[in-house]
């Protein structure tokens, strides 16, 4: 893994953490409801866990696929999929539907998993996943290659999620303690559109790099 990919992983983690829809806002809401900062803090690991599960599933899937399919094929296939998904996110007017504020931490993790998945959070890491490290050599198929692919997937997920968790945590506490939710009216930019653009961009980069 190059420094560049590592930086990209961290940056994408920060970007996901910053998005109110990815969970920090839910943490703040739970805290405000009971006037309790510890409820804000309790919610964050559950949200991060759900996010990690969603991103990790994609990372591991990509890593495993890489161990059996040529990297170039994977990159092109994945990149095209990514552009398509990004276009769908850009054009679709549907939004995530869920009901319920009073949910357990387990349910909150499940919510975060679904929220991250429908937004394609893991897919956004595709350029990093397909360009990082060396692909296993042809003779090296089998358990050994799968093992190293898995560990790459886990590493990518951990770095990304740590960045996401840190940024979401800082934002949640800052909003809860200092800024207040009135900041939403001014500062809640339509990240969904930026997000869709990032997906399309990531897909394009993946394909171009592979060609």
């Amino acid at each position, binding site marked *: 893994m190059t420094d560049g990919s590592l930086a990209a992983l961290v940056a994408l983690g920060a970007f996901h953490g910053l998005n109110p829809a990815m969970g920090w806002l839910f943490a703040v809401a739970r805290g405000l*409801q009971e006037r309790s900062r510890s409820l804000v803090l309790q919610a964050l690991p559950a949200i991060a866990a759900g996010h990690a599960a969603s991103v990790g599933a994609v990372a591991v899937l990509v890593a495993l696929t890489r161990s059996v399919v040529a990297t170039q094929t994977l990159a092109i296939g994945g990149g095209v999929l990514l552009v398509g998904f990004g276009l769908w996110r850009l054009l679709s007017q549907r939004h995530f539907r869920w009901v319920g504020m009073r949910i357990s931490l387990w349910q909150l993790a499940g919510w975060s998993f679904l929220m991250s998945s429908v937004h394609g959070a893991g897919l956004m890491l595709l350029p990093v996943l397909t360009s990082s490290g060396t692909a296993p050599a042809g003779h090296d198929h089998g358990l050994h290659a799968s093992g190293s692919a898995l560990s790459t997937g886990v590493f990518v997920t951990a770095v990304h999620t740590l960045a996401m968790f840190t940024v979401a945590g800082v934002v949640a506490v800052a909003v809860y303690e200092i800024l207040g939710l009135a900041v939403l009216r001014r500062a809640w930019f339509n990240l969904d559109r930026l997000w869709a653009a990032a997906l399309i961009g990531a897909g394009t980069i993946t394909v171009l790099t592979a060609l």
Partner: protein
Amino acid sequence: MALWKPDPTFYASPRDAVSAPPEKLAYVAAFDRAAEKPDAIAVLDVDPGSSSYGDVVGWTDLPYLGDELHHFGWNACSSALCPYAPHPHVERRYLIVPGLRSSRVYVIDTKENPTAPEIVKILEPDELAKRAGYSRPHTVHCGPEGLYLTALGGANGEDGPGGIALLDHTSFDVLGRWEVDRGPQYFAYDAWWHIAHDVLVTSEWGTPSMIEDGVVGELLLGRKYGHALHFWDLRKRRHVQTVDLGDEHQMALELRPAHDPTKQYGFVGVVVSVEDLSASVWAWHRDGDGWAAKKVITIPAEPADAAGLPPVIAPFGAVPPLVTDIDLSVDDRWLYVSCWGTGELKRYDVSDPFNPVEAGSVRLGGITGRAAHPAAPDLPLSGGPQMVEVSRDGRRVYVTNSLYGAWDDQFYPDGVGAWMAKLDSDPGDASANGFKLDERFFPHGEAFRGRRPHQTRLQGGDASSDSYCYP
């Protein structure tokens, strides 16, 4: 098209919403009782600095006859900021306008030309029947994952059960019946929620056959109209508890839960007690794991000479107050109570919801009172303050005078007329002086082109349109 920043009319908390700028336009549902002219959405100028202040400045006729417009609501509101299904970049621009008699639902765009709103979609009655099994649509509320539309009747005008249909946020298509398990609930009317507690509340009026030709005396005296509240699990869509107010308390209608999402109480108005013709307001509240309700306001009937009364109440020799609508200010401090029979609008300080303190009253119309508006002191008024709407900052209160076509005719048989009034409410003055009619605002008679005005919705939202997920 999605916005780059949240719609400026969305507020995270009721505390923030109170600082919203004053509305400039009001939308009023207006219907023709004879069904000879189309019903309409009237647009009122409510900007005191404008030269046409208090005038009808816009008018959109519907394409059909006999819809009987009644209640309506916005396509999106502050609940779009809720954390579990956030979509804050949609616009509050469409009015969702049900025809209570026809069961049609109109989607009307107010953005392109706010004073000439345009119909962009019509849901036909059979869509509501086929997909949700309901008819006679009534209340509209914008929820985080769709629009909730209550309906009084079963499919195609059958008697029941009434319930809630869920509508898609963007296409406005009927998605289906909301209830998974309705328990013993049969009657429907209003619905609202404690959104941060995953609790939905519904109230009861009657089925289509019980209301459409007027109030039925035997049913009323037989205590057959609705008299209970239903509490539901908003997530699981299941009935949780019925709270019966007692069968003498006929017709539990408008639900006004506290706007503060940390609170779990609210108010419901009861039209009439068959024991003494009084009307009442109840506060529902958490009671251990369940719910309970307590009568917190009783308004007695006013004795009157039977000769001056319409046949429906002449045998009783008294005028029932008939509390037909109530509205709670966004700061949860002031409750406005319409007495449509006696022609009075009362203001209560409900800082302590279980001990309301009356804080002003204004008389307009009334079955025997016929109190005039100061802007036209020689004109006796029919009808009374009925639908009441409060601005987000809590300083302006709007009332219209029609209840429901067939019932107007029973209680005001010589004609209910058509008028709208505005009151100035001073949140800093709990004395009667803090609650006064605005003498400059009195659209009436021909201003409404022969139609009867019903619910008012304020541009940008009002006290009964938005719910909030943050305190």
